[in-house]
């Protein structure tokens, strides 16, 4: 399992596109949007950075789904899955070995973006334990949904298109681009069914209200449940993925 994880991680380090999507583009978005909204009258600077930095952090975690889909589709098409299946490695270890690097990468992404917020915009971080828990859940949901999509889609393009829908649609409805409070009532209700909303609200609770693990239990539970659903779908779809890869 660790051999697979190590190789996957090495490949990710070599992937310049992934570095751009994961770290550079979110930083550009954060810098750009903080600059745009900082000039607005009647809006506090703290409000802006605590909305934009965690908001874009949550949004960009979902872009890992593209990399996961590409990795799985490639492995299926170039016969790597079939070849690994001929070795004594239990196939669940292959699945875990592929997943772990993406989980680490998303956690690293969250850490870098929040640290950028701290260093550049004096973003307060709040309780570290709560921050770690909500970040773990955020990484869990983004990667598990990515794994689910990776085993279900037939082509890379299909995966990329669906990722855009989930990442952008979720960002819009979940209040990542603008505070939920200024959205129409109906959209405010809908936003509660979007995991991005619970991710952002969790971060805001910790950063703005000095929330602890107890204060974010609901957010954590919802994110965990959505992530678990993703893993369940991934495990159910994995059999079909393997069958396609083996024949």
């Amino acid at each position, binding site marked *: 399992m660790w*051999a697979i994880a190590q*190789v996957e991680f090495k*490949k990710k380090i070599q992937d310049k596109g992934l570095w751009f999507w994961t770290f550079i583009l979110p930083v550009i978005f954060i810098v750009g949007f903080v600059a745009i909204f900082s000039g607005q009258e009647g809006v506090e600077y703290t409000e802006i950075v605590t909305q934009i930095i965690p908001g874009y952090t949550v949004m960009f975690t979902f872009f890992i789904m593209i990399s996961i889909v590409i990795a799985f589709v490639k492995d299926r098409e*170039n*016969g790597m899955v079939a070849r690994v299946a001929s*070795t*004594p*490695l239990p196939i669940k270890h292959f699945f875990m070995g592929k997943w772990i690097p993406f989980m680490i990468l998303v956690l690293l992404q969250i850490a870098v973006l929040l640290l950028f917020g701290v260093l550049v915009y004096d973003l307060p971080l709040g309780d570290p334990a709560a921050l770690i828990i909500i970040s773990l859940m955020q990484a869990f949901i983004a990667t598990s949904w990515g794994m689910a999509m990776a085993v279900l889609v037939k082509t890379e393009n299909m995966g990329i298109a669906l990722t855009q829908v989930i990442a952008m649609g979720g960002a819009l409805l979940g209040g990542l681009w603008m505070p939920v409070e200024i959205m129409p009532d109906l959209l405010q209700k809908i936003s509660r069914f979007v995991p991005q909303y619970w991710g952002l609200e969790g971060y805001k609770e910790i950063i703005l209200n000095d929330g602890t693990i107890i204060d974010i239990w609901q957010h954590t539970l919802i994110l965990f449940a959505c992530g678990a659903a993703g893993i369940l779908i991934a495990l159910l779809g994995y059999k079909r993925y393997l069958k396609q890869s*083996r*024949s």
Partner: protein
Amino acid sequence: MIKIDHVSKTYDAAQALTDINLEIAEGTCFGLVGPNGAGKSTLMKILAGIILDFDGDMFFNGHGVSNERMFIKKQIGYIPQDICLEETLTARDNLLLFGHLYGLSGKKLHERIEAVLEQIGLTNRSKDVVLSFSGGMKRRLNIGCALLHEPAVIIMDEPTVGIDPQSRNSIFTIIKQLKAAGSTIIYSSHYMEEVEQLCDSVGLIDKGRVVEGGQMQELLERHGKPSLFISGDAIGPKSLEPLTAMKKGDGYLVNSEDPMATLEQLIASLRSQDIKPKRLELYYPRLEDIFFTLTGTQLRDV
């Protein structure tokens, strides 16, 4: 001994393999021969434990695939038809990966990597990324990845497809070394000459069925009665009458139970017609001819 026992496989409605029964002796090289789409790769994948949903069973030295899959996988090195490597990584990284997958680690793994690099002739390129390799080098590395754990059985699915003659010879050398070391090799190909050159026994497969099999020499002798090959400007079915001739290449094959007597008869007939052939020789059928006789299909038809 490897025993393939009544193995059948269907893909949705399509029957890929039908009641395959084969026995492969330990330490021999077995050739699985058939045109593209005959079912060779499907059988190879079943042997390698990749395809799991099939009817029938297989036994490796008495161990059944259905019950002792993991044990058997440790004894097998599978070399797929497609090159399956991590191309952005180095040759050594690829070998490390597969070594770990086969359960090797530490000093033993590093020793085996050095030995395999030497065996496949890539010691000097071990730190280069696979992307920079030629097709032949990739093929050799593809083979090397399956040899790290010193498997007793090596399954090679068309390992020489799409490579230059030099790389092909290099792969043949590796296979001969493996044979000499006592490995059992299962080698699939649609290149008859390769199979004739490398294998001790053979199975001819067409449309998912084994149409003939056995020791290479026995098979050639059983089906390989010599005939006469004749070619030349004025040579045709009419000039060869009353003998029956079959077109082959730029000439004709004349089948006969007694080729020497037929040769005399043919020479006399040609003299009387004042025809001088360009070539007239005894022709010993090759595997390709036997396959054609049995199936009516040329190996490269499909």
